[in-house]
Each structure stands twice: as C-alpha cells, then as structure tokens.
C-alpha cells in the first residue's frame, strides 16, 4: 500500500485516492482540425516509462482535489507532489 502525500491533506493511504493517468496532456487547441490518427493519439496514447512519471491523482476520500505526482514506476517511490497549475518540479 502506498502512502501518498496529498498536497493539501498530507500523507494518506493509497485507498483514499484515485489514479488519473499521465499528467500534462494538453487538450488540442483545435480538436476539429485533427486527423483521426492525431485525435486517437491525444485520446489513447500515453507514455509508459520505467522510472519517473508525472501523473494525476485525485484525493477522492479526502479533500476531493486533483493534483500531480512524480512517481517512479519501478520503485513506486513518490518524488514530488504538486498542485494543479503548478509546474512540474525538477526531480533527480
């Protein structure tokens, strides 16, 4: 079980959170102009790194806020958490 530090509530049990996939996936500026393939890439294609990964989490059982976390997908260590709108912090 992970202990995830919510940027508002502090460290909480993983069971209080929901996962939201890769962070910083920008909505296309003009979706209507995209080809089917480009749209599919926006909808379905995500990075799958072994190592640091910026991803979204929602503290559903607590403050119900979305935030971002940088997690090492190999070790599950969480290197940073930051609020929505804040830039991704530099992590080692």
């Amino acid at each position, binding site marked *: 079980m992970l202990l995830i530090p919510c940027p508002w509530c502090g460290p909480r*049990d993983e069971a209080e959170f929901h996962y939201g996939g890769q962070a910083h996936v920008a909505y296309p500026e003009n979706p209507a102009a995209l080809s089917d393939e480009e749209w599919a890439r926006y909808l379905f294609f995500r990075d799958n790194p072994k190592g640091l990964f910026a991803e979204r989490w929602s503290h559903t*059982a607590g*403050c119900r*806020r979305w935030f971002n976390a940088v997690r090492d997908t190999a070790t599950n260590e969480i290197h940073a958490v930051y609020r929505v709108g804040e830039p991704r912090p530099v992590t080692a």
Partner: protein
Amino acid sequence: MADSTVAVSMAVPIAGRRSPAAAYAARFEAASAGGGLRLAEIPFLTQVNLRVDPKSPAAERIGTAIGVPLPVEPGTVAGGGDLEALWLGPDEWVLLAPDGAAPGLVARLTEAAGGEHVSVVDVSAQRTTLVVAGDRARDVLAHGCTLDLHPRVFGPGRCAQTTLARAGVVLVAGEDGFRLLVRSSFAGYVAEWLLDASVEYAGPAAGA
C-alpha cells in the same frame, strides 16, 4: 390519490423525524457502560456546505457575518459552541450548528455572499454525527482508520475527511474524543462496525 399522499407526508411533524442511527441508542449506551469508551449519536445537527474562493471578498464577508473566520489551513476547525467551520477542501467548508439553525444560517451566508460565485447548500440530512469519546476512542478508531490519531498530530481543532472501515467520514477531534460525520445511509454500517470494534474496550460492565 397522489395529492393526498403528498399532503400526508408533508403533515408529518418535525418531531416525527427519525435519526439514521436512532436504532442503536440502546447498544451505544451498553457499550459505553464500561467507562473507557462512550458511543452516542448527536442527531439532526445543522450542516451547511459552503464553497467559496478563500481569497475573495465574499469569503471575508461570510467570516464576518457568521463571526467565525473560515479556516484556511487544511484539516482545521474554527469557531466552537453553536457554530463551527470545518475545512473540507481549499475552497470548501462545512458549517456545523445546532438543530434548526439551517434556514437562518443559509440566509446569512447567502446575504454575505452577495452576487459573488458562492455555493451554499443545506446538507443537514446528508450526514449524522456519531460520538466516539473516552480514553479508548483512539484505539477503537485505529481499528479502521489509517490516519495518525495521536493528539500531537490530530488533537482538538483538527478535522479530516478520510475513511473509517472503508466508509467515508469526516473526523473531528475534540477535547474528550471524536465526532464522526457519517453519511446517513452508512450510519447503520458504521454503528455496527464501531460496536464490533469496541467489544474489547467496552469493559467488564458491558462485556460481562
């Protein structure tokens, strides 16, 4: 026929209300007989959910209007006695007041909000309040709550939205123990769980 049904249901006096955990009063009392633990329900508390940008002038006007500044530090409670403001999120609070205070409180909040982007909702019926107090309160809650409940971390003036035995609760720490704001539909489950978790702490009087 439909008309008469509506008339009957609206004619039910407020004294006929039944709190979500009313059926557990006797068992709560029995579990509290040992002295180390006190379980009880506080029914029908007024709860008003408030959402407003904490930096907006409306938030300040609301704080002035209700005499309790909205707490901005996560997980804290402001006020006391007849009006408490519990931090639920960075722009969300729930205000607790005695039974019957909802219409007046909502009116005061709405007036203080002015025309700004504020949400005021009477959610009194959403949750009931369970009391887990006494020396053993922390031990009982620790059976199903992942939070650190040590008074150094979670003492009086602190509150948290979390899960107790997988049920979502708002946990409020007090001098003598805790209040649990539990959704009405979960009240029976949480009451059963509390009674089960407290068996070993109920003391000889209740356990004999």
